[in-house]
């Protein structure tokens, strides 16, 4: 049986022998959601998936209290930015695999705008 957890990759930030990030630095780095895990003397081992729509990394923060953004049409997790687009558009789903398919089809038909 398929589980979306089967897709999870592995992310490690090891600061056991390092000053790590202060919370200000973690904020600046865009890691504020896992700031407590990447400070001095710590090691974070985090599951991570890619947004189905834009491919950006989604860190599966266990402390998240909001719902994880999810696209029921492609049955994958998506990032918060793509979720905003999906909701605003009434449910638009364009996974990156579709972008690839359309690109390859256009290339096969000689319709690429910027081919090399």
């Amino acid at each position, binding site marked *: 049986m398929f589980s979306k957890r089967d897709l999870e990759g592995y992310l490690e*930030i*090891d600061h056991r022998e390092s000053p790590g990030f202060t919370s200000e630095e973690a904020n600046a*780095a*865009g890691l504020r959601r896992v700031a407590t895990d990447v400070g001095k003397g710590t090691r974070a081992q985090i599951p991570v998936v890619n947004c189905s729509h834009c491919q950006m990394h989604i860190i599966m923060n266990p402390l998240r209290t909001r719902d994880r953004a999810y696209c029921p049409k492609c049955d994958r997790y998506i990032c918060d930015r793509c979720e905003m687009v999906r909701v605003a558009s009434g449910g638009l789903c364009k996974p990156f*695999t579709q972008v690839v398919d359309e690109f390859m089809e256009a290339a096969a038909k000689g319709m690429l705008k910027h081919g090399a």
Partner: protein
Amino acid sequence: MARRISAQTTFTPTAVADTTAFTAGQAMGFWKGGSGTQLTRFWEISISGQAASSSSPTFMLFSRDSTVGTGTQSQQTGGTDTALDPATAALAAVVGVGSNWATTFPQRDTANHLANCSLNAFGGVYFWRANRAEECFLMLGNTASNGECSLSAFTGGTPGAIGGHTIYETQ
């Protein structure tokens, strides 16, 4: 399909803002599709801190580029790119790998940061590996913004010396 590993022994990145042209030796690496329809998957990114003496928050980003590099692409000192399997046949169109460009340097895309690879270069380690092919980052063609990726330092922090590698696979 052929998996290759591009590595950088050691270098100190320079923090560069989005949509700002890089210059020589500032980024850890650029990968550009070898043809207009080439598809490459990125399987792994590893960065190890090498700063010797003081805290060095280094905000590395793996990102798509909104302006792709042009001219001959070359490695900086300590940069390598080789097949994981020595029996790998050469690709008809080789993925461009290297930090330097002869004509135009790339610019990182504002809207297409794919992974935040930040670490403290004073003793820190960053490592990511995809679990499945569909979870790899894809590089498609060789034009902006899907046809080139970069691993470089974003503004802020105090970038320190790092080394690392990236594993990618071209179809």
